[in-house]
């Protein structure tokens, strides 16, 4: 985002800095501190209440957690399901994103409207409606049911972010390539796709991440037979077992998110991301 400087007299600047400092401290306390706490817990072998920090550090609970059968089974399952969801979502949504951004056809607005309306439904009640249908079809507790439910809400990322990106493509480059004799396919692969690649990459990552960490749908239509990693974590948290298990899982689950964050830093600055997420 570009911050255009506002011409103002100097005294405003110090007030500005003070306000910013207050805001920053508040955000550090509210957003960052709980996450730092989890990281500390993940490496704490002993941390009893009177102590401000862990009294004994180590990886003991990492080994214990990774040795658990439920974790060993659910981790590859979650990876597989999230990969399937991401691939299906790309195949289904990217063509639609291209059409919505680039083609003008009768009914385009109606289709746009239907995609927007789809997001005006609250999420969990909709999962329940889907689950009731799956129940009558005998699909509860199956992998396809989990994939289907997770797919529905990945559309938010896979349609809007690429649509905004396709809209931003410089058409003069495409026309120039076509003028010198490039075919449709060549133009798409060599000119159009490279321009939208970062946005599509971000959409793929966001979709993967959301499917991987998804709790609601997996809980409703997956259990008892399909137990993804977040569902295992949910039972470890609510079961009030060893605190470190939840912490280690959080730290582990989080690595892909951090990679995404670093990748997406560029996206934060681009209007594409904001436009994709907000419309």
């Amino acid at each position, binding site marked *: *985002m570009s*911050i*255009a400087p*506002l011409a*103002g007299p100097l005294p405003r600047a110090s007030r500005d800095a003070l*306000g910013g400092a207050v*805001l*920053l401290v508040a*955000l*550090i306390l509210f*957003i*960052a501190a*709980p996450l730092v*706490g*989890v990281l500390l817990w993940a490496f704490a072998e002993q941390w009893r*209440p*009177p102590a401000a920090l862990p009294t004994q550090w180590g990886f003991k609970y990492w080994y214990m957690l990774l040795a658990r059968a439920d974790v060993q089974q659910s981790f590859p399952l979650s990876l597989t399901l999230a990969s399937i969801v991401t691939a299906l979502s790309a195949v*289904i949504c990217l*063509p639609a994103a291209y059409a919505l951004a680039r*083609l*003008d*056809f009768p009914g385009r607005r109606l289709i*746009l*409207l*239907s995609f927007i*309306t*789809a997001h*005006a*439904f*609250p*999420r*969990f*009640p*909709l999962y*329940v*409606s889907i*689950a*009731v*249908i799956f*129940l009558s079809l005998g699909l509860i507790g199956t992998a396809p049911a989990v994939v289907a439910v997770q*797919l*529905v809400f990945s*559309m938010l990322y896979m349609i809007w972010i690429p649509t905004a990106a396709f*809209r931003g493509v410089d058409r003069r480059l495409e026309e120039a390539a076509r003028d010198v004799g490039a075919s449709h396919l060549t133009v798409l692969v060599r000119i159009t796709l490279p321009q939208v690649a970062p946005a599509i990459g971000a959409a793929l990552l966001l979709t993967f*991440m959301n499917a991987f*960490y998804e*709790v*609601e749908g997996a*809980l409703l239509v997956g259990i008892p037979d399909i137990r993804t990693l*977040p569902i295992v*974590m949910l039972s470890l948290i*609510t079961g009030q077992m060893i605190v470190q298990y*939840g912490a280690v899982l959080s730290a582990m689950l*989080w690595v892909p*998110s951090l990679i*995404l964050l670093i990748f997406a*830093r560029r996206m934060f600055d681009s*209007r594409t991301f904001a*436009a994709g997420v*907000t419309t």
Partner: protein
Amino acid sequence: MTAAALADSGTPGASGARGVRARRRALLRAALLVAPALAMVAIFIVVPAVMSMGGTFFVGGKPSLANYQDFFGNPQSVQNLRFTVGVTLISVGILLVAGLTIALYLRFSHTRLVGAIQILALFPLFVPSIVASFALIRFLGPAGWVPTLLRLVGITAYQTPYLHASGAVIGLVWQELPMTVLMLMAGLAQVSNRSIEAARDCGAGSTTIFVHIVLPQIFRSVVVAGCIGFLDIIGSFTVPYILGPAAPQMMSIYMQRSFSELHRAAASETQATVTFLVCILVGAIYTAFVFRDSVDNAELAK
């Protein structure tokens, strides 16, 4: 000239049979591209929602209000519904105030803190709700970091929000803050510096400028941010499930229990339908506003 370009021009310029055929081909191509996504929406959103809404008004194949008599005759259901709406409205109110404060600072300040504030405010976008909920238990819970640190400085009167309504509100605000900030930032990006400078030159103070210059220009963004916050929160499950109280419950948790634990599918569907109905107005406002914006964007892109 490509079929797409022909369709784009969309004028009778390309007259005759060739033009008609090209347009038809363009339409077919667009339909093929959009069809899979549209089918997804139809099969997994429209059909289930309509079936739930319609189905709950029938019992044993006959039209009946029995499901709703059960729901509204049960004090627990009604209490859960009120609790859900209350928690949602309070969270949205906090989100709008906090989000506006942050977004305004990011838009109009030019200190070096802007980058750090932006990263922190958007960070929860990349933290899964289950990790966030666990982090908040370890932070604010009865044996969490906050009470531990407070005890070290002699404060023992701490009351944990964990498993209370306030715990759900804190978690939901934590999770939803980036969305609100992003949307308000997008709105504020449209506000012109010139109008603000002009007002300041006329001697207007910050409050006057905010109320009379900035707010009218970002009104739509504020409404959309509020609607999205409302829909996301009322449709959330994980955060209130982990951080909120056991009774009363958010509707999502109530539904999950009815469906998975009590095996009362019809009851859970009724609860879902009641929640849909609560959201209809908000959803309609959201759809109308976002639809107009995206049509405007599409026109601008041409």
